[in-house]
């Protein structure tokens, strides 16, 4: 047996420690600190809540499996996330088994809220360790906690940790080593938790705090001062709008250099291969199908990473819930909860995590509406299409001094998606009739500096997901599309480029009947077909379509000038409008089916989005033509 196999076996038999705590207690940062890159992100069986498991080795050489449970305020579950946490800890999930040790992570600056959950879990009788996390912040604020006294009061090991600091997890690992070997214990039934009322539990928390801590009331004045500005009725929304605008500007301007490097590199590879290979089917597959197609999607990696860079920072420093607070009235106006903001914001990256994040919404109808409108938020997969068309048709100049016109158009497209989502939500709520009250109940955590390590791990996850998609779904589609567009070849004496006679060409020409009224020629129609599988593939497909349509050897030249010369402005605008509402990529539809439990919601979604997209493109095309575009 090899070393890695031995290690894998040791890990699979290692004790399972579960990290459990309130949202915002720094649990995930501690998980990242313990496991580093040794993480496995999957789903809990039967549901699509993210299950993060990793492993680590203690100083004494004992292996542990580490499970990062979803954050919970209580084991009396109010959301599906909390239900998972409750079921795992209670040993009710057949596939997971109850954890061997529960590590309760608490925010040392807010023991009053956090300790209640600890007392609840203690009633289950599992071996426990308490992590006083963020002790550095608590000390700075003058909060004094006697950890030894707390350990005596709770009858459990108490360790101090600073999850954002290198080595801040050492005390926890030492405490786990002291418990070695871990003897599995069966948890008591969950009913044990309700044996004591919430008020009595809170009374006990207050009693414990009066014994072990001083100055627990020292609150976070700095966060309050920041909130005075950030949540200000006038300044707040202005800051939010400026912030969003700057992010979209940055996505366009910062990404320019790395994007040029990637496209230049891809071009070089194509040229190199063309020079060293004999002309034939294989060269065509490699240069036009794989390198041309995949390369034109890969080039958008920098933009996606920049967008996530900002989302992750805003999330980590605590601004996102403030944005939800500011937007709550707007959301409430169309019948959504402010909580819907987080799923909708995630949808700017991709609708799939957005649809999944809707789980944190308690009201089922509210959740369904949020899921249905999530794909109207402009996901990053649409960005490649926007970027390509904007670069080809919108001149690169500045308006009102320093604002890039291209960035401004992009901002408008995003805005159109948001407005239409609000309209659809309003319509759905109205047609659903009954006016139910929507709960908000959202914590506004203390602000803190974003953690570089968490940022890097988060960005790495995103890059990995994107590259996996490029390497699997997109590559497969590109090869398939290349085959469809290359066979059968052109007949002798053909007047059109060869793709016109291929299977894809036939399909595209058939679809042209439907799409001609909104200004799409057969080239665009061909690209729309694989675009159903993944939106960004449409760009790669256009690359293939036009590369194959070109006569001569200028295959690797960029698409931009080709599009600018072969489409009218009205067609370009129509395509942009189409993509604001673009019918779903298949993976989103399958997630919607899974999350809602009904295939009919996936059909509703595809249907209403197709109708919206077609109407919007139709109007855009004809108005643009009337105006002479």
């Amino acid at each position: 047996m090899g070393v890695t196999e031995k290690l894998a076996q040791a890990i699979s038999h290692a004790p399972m420690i579960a990290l459990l705590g309130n949202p915002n207690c720094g649990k995930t940062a501690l998980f990242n600190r313990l496991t580093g890159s040794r993480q496995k992100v999957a789903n809990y069986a039967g549901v699509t809540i993210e299950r993060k498991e990793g492993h680590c080795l203690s100083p004494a050489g004992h292996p542990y499996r580490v499970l990062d449970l979803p954050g919970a305020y209580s084991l009396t579950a109010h959301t599906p996330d909390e239900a998972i946490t409750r079921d795992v800890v209670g040993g009710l999930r057949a596939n997971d088994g109850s954890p061997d040790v529960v590590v309760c992570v608490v925010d040392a600056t807010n023991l009053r809220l956090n300790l209640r959950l600890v007392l609840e879990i203690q009633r289950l009788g599992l071996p426990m360790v308490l992590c006083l996390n963020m002790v550095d912040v608590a000390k700075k604020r003058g909060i004094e906690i006697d950890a030894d006294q707390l350990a005596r009061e709770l009858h459990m090991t108490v360790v101090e940790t600073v999850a954002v600091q290198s080595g801040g997890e050492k005390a926890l690992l030492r405490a786990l080593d002291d418990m070695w070997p871990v003897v599995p214990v069966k948890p008591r039934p969950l009913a044990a938790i309700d044996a004591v009322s919430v008020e009595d539990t809170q009374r006990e928390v207050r009693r414990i705090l009066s014994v072990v801590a001083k100055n627990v009331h020292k609150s976070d004045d700095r966060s309050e001062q920041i909130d005075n500005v950030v949540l200000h009725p006038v300044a707040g929304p202005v800051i939010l709008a400026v912030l969003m605008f700057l992010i979209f500007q940055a996505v366009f301007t910062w990404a320019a250099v790395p994007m040029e490097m990637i496209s230049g590199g891809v071009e070089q590879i194509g040229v190199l291969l063309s020079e060293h290979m004999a002309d034939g089917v294989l060269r065509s597959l490699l240069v036009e199908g794989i390198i041309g197609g995949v390369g034109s999607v890969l080039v958008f990696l920098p933009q996606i990473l920049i967008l996530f860079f900002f989302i992750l920072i805003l999330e980590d420093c605590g601004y996102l819930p403030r944005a939800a607070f500011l937007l709550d009235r707007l959301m409430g106006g169309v019948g959504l909860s402010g909580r819907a903001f987080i799923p909708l914001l995630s949808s700017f990256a991709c609708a799939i995590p957005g649809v999944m994040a809707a789980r944190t919404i308690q009201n089922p109808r509210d959740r369904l509406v949020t899921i249905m409108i999530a794909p109207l938020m402009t996901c990053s997969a649409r960005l490649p299409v926007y970027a390509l068309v904007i670069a080809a048709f919108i001149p690169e100049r500045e308006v009102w001094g320093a604002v890039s016109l291209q960035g401004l158009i992009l901002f408008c497209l995003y805005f159109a998606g948001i407005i239409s989502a609000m309209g659809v939500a309003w319509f759905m709520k109205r047609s659903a009739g009954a006016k139910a009250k929507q709960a908000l109940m959202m914590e506004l955590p203390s602000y803190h500096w974003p953690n570089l390590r968490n940022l890097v791990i988060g960005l790495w996850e995103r890059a990995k997901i994107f590259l996996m998609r490029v390497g699997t779904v997109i590559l497969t589609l590109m090869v398939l599309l290349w085959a469809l567009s290359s066979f059968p070849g052109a007949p002798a004496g053909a007047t059109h480029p060869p793709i016109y006679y291929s299977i894809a060409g036939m399909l595209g020409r058939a679809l042209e009947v439907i799409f001609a009224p909104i200004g799409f020629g057969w080239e665009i129609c061909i690209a729309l077909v694989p675009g159903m599988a993944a939106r960004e593939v449409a760009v790669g497909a256009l690359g293939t379509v036009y590369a194959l349509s070109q006569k001569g050897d200028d295959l690797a030249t960029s698409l931009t000038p080709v599009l600018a010369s072969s489409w009218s402005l009205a067609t370009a605008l129509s395509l942009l409008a189409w993509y604001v509402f673009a019918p779903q990529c298949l993976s989103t539809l399958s997630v919607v089916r899974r999350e809602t439990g009904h295939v009919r919601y996936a059909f509703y979604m595809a249907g209403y989005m197709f109708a919206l997209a077609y109407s919007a493109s139709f109007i855009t095309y004809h108005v643009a033509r009337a105006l002479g575009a």
Partner: protein
Amino acid sequence: MTLAPSLINLDTLAAGKSGTVVHVAPTNGDGGESADLARRLMELGFVPGEKIRMLKRGMPGGEPLAIKVGNATFALRRYEAALVAIQPE
């Protein structure tokens, strides 16, 4: 439910003012959902005896509310805050 004259519901507290939670109860009539909300409010720390402070009220219409309880801040809608009866300072 009749309140003693000095007690008010949390949703009517002005921004910047403080108070102490006296009791949390579902309003009359709408059964299970309010009871659920009341329980969750208590789990978040809105239990009798806790000091609370209204930090901010959203615009327009004074909603949502940002309320400090213990060392945590929560955003609530009006009808949620209306379940909490407080003694203003």
